[in-house]
């Protein structure tokens, strides 16, 4: 029971910092391809002019404290404010070659399990491309796709689904 409460609390926290969770019957398909360099995600082309020192990652008030990117249904496109968020992490990785992350891709429970593994992989790859565009090195990033196997939120409704369609940046 304690565990359940913790999950709910986490979900509420996540929901609070996420304005982009929405159901999308006809989300734009990610047709950008996964060829490195073919980044055409909105705003990705502009490099960010910030610099982070190594300790910035431990600052709870920094934008870097947000490490979850949410996606639309059946889409692997990084949208809205999440583009900016990923760019900040890219800058951090770029400035701190010793830092490394594990990028975990996830989906909601809808759809088939292996397709969801593939979809979650593409979500993580989209984030990886954005990070690299800011100067992060491929060797700093390990991608793993869990598909629908590790939901952040249990439940069979739009709220749970929105919280589960995500990529998580895990600093190591």
């Amino acid at each position, binding site marked *: 029971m304690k565990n359940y409460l913790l999950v709910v609390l986490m979900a509420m926290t996540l929901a609070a910092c996420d304005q982009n969770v929405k159901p999308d019957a006809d989300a734009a398909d990610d047709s950008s391809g996964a060829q490195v360099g073919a980044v055409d995600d909105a705003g990705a082309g502009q490099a960010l002019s910030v610099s982070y020192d190594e300790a910035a990652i431990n600052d709870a008030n920094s934008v870097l404290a947000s490490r979850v990117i949410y996606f639309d249904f059946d889409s692997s496109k990084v949208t809205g404010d999440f583009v900016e968020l990923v760019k900040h992490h890219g800058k951090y990785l770029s400035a701190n070659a010793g830092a490394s992350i594990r990028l975990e891709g996830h989906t909601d429970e809808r759809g088939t399990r292996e397709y969801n593994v593939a979809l979650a992989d593409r979500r993580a*790859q989209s984030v990886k491309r954005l990070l690299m565009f800011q100067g992060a090195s491929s060797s700093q990033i390990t991608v793993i796709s869990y598909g629908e196997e590790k939901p952040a939120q249990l439940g*069979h409704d739009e709220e749970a689904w929105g919280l589960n369609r995500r990529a998580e940046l895990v600093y190591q």
Partner: protein
Amino acid sequence: MMRYLLTFILLGFCSASQAVLNIEITEGVEGSLPIAVVPFQWTGGVKFANADVSAIIASDLARSGKFSPLPNKDLVAYPKQPEDVHFPSWRMIGVDHLVIGGVKQEAPDQYLVHFRLFDVLKGEQLLGYSFAATRSSLRSVAHRVSDHIIKSLTGLTGAFDARISYVTARQSPATKGVTYLLQAADTDGFNAQNLLTSSEPIMSPAWSPDGEQLAYVSFEHGIAEIFIHNIYTAKRELVSKFKGINGAPAWSPDGTRLAITLSKDGNPDIYILDLVSKSLTRITKHWSIDTEAVWMPDGKSLVFTSSRSGKPQLYQIAVAVNARPKRLTFEGNYNANASISSDGKTVCFVKGENNSFKVAVLYLDTGLIQIVTDGPLDESPEFSPNGSMILYASQYKGKPVLEAVSTDGRHKQRLGLSDGEVREPAWSAVKK
């Protein structure tokens, strides 16, 4: 609308774990053939509850969806020998077929199971066999009898003397984690065997054609890897651990190759891994998602899911380098995760529409599609070895369960787990 025409529950006997499958027939026995299975007489020993051979046969026949076994209380007589059978009285109550038999204990762990199948209308014996068994193989022998009866009366190769595998997930309040189990059991949920326990996900178990090995994906080392696991020797081999996705293993019909999904070259694509030479052949090459390959029974082509048209659809591709895929599904924007019947004529898959995911059947000769389940979160459909049933994962009262539906959608049964979640069923072709 659920029709509880016939409901019975079998409590599973479980040697290696706590997980127990309960099977209920939930929908539709109309059009099934009335059959009487007379309780078998035990001689030379005492019947034990876990191996009530005639009850196992009756429940298999009911689960096939083709037969309605008479309840014991409606039996007009309990004949033990052929000469005791009085056909007119069975005709009177409208029974088409009759099964009689017995179990004879010949030595401490030696049994002989004998049975006869009669055509009541003609007053003729259709089958008569006896099988040797040990105490531990009695249930298996009972399933074999069911397979013989089904084959004789329907022409379908029986599939009850087989194993099903499935993945269970249990939330552990103590550790805040989930425990994943890969298990195998008889087709009626009995004799559950624990093959793998992990704190990381286990996915996509697939039986080898000889029914001895399972290929599956395990995240036990923090990454996705494909293993092959012999269920009799417990020997395990790591066969695929490329960078990125290692997923969706599917055995070739001759058991020498695995179709798998890898993302090592940038995108999820389909490859064939030769299990003997360990060589890898890339089959698809597209920037979209290609995954969930299954083999046509002739081994010459694969059916897979691809998002190359924008949304997941089913495609067929020859097993050859640079082959061009042919699109199979056009209706709707989510058609995925195919399984192919053993005659190669029918494909079952997941069809998603308006947030509801249902199992559908595609008839390849006509291109017609029939939806056979109610959703809303049905997945992992797989044909039984004889193609008459589809086993799939579903939700019942918010809890993951396995269900089986006849290919025509008329007959349904539920395999619920008494503890934890159950998912990703796979049905072996034969039992060793």
